[in-house]
């Protein structure tokens, strides 16, 4: 009975292992520079201590918008994932088209230079 969950266990182990390996590797291989900004918690350019009614740079909104749009499209991947098998090739092709359209959006955003920070 519990053996049914063996793949899950395996999957978890692999995931944890992978994360651990990557963290360790970056610790050993990566170049280390320490700046004030970089050492702040979350590493995101925000001051962790201070007034909460802080004004954000407008660029955050732009990035946030892209994130919302691309992220929310993933919603359609879940139902597909659930019935991936019965849908077969048809579903795969459909999803490929769907993702292709998303990629077009990404290419467009990229090509327009909207991903440049400056």
């Amino acid at each position, binding site marked *: 009975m519990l053996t049914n969950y063996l793949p899950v266990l395996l999957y978890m182990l692999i995931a944890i292992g992978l994360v651990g390996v990557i963290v360790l590797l970056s610790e050993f291989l990566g170049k280390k520079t320490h700046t004030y900004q970089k050492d702040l918690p979350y590493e995101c350019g925000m001051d962790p201590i201070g007034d909460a009614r802080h004004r954000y740079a*407008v660029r955050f*909104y*732009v990035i*946030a*918008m*892209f994130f*919302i*749009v691309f*992220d*929310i*499209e993933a*919603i*359609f991947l879940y*139902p597909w994932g659930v019935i991936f098998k019965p849908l077969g090739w048809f579903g795969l092709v459909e999803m490929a088209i769907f993702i292709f359209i998303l990629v077009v959006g990404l290419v467009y955003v990229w090509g327009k230079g909207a991903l440049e920070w400056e």
Partner: protein
Amino acid sequence: MVVPLHYYLGLSVALFALGVVGVLIRRNILVILMCIEMMLNAVNLAFIGFADAFKAVDGQTFVFFVMTVAAAEVAVGLALVVAIFRHRATVYADDLNILKW
């Protein structure tokens, strides 16, 4: 445990009404957009409630589409707010008064 349909509907209507009131009384356009999101989510809740009651799946499918569309709408809305903010340094609905009767 089965949640009765009218619980869903009651909550949904309440959420929707809250959203409407929020849209009507808040001045900040960002908050107005959030309230509109709330209205859409109330609709989602209603759909899910009905889908659950009827054991029909199309209500849930509808929810997916509503969510994506709402995201797109908000993205456009945010972009417009940003554009307006760059011009006039305001995000308040009552400052949108160039176009008048």
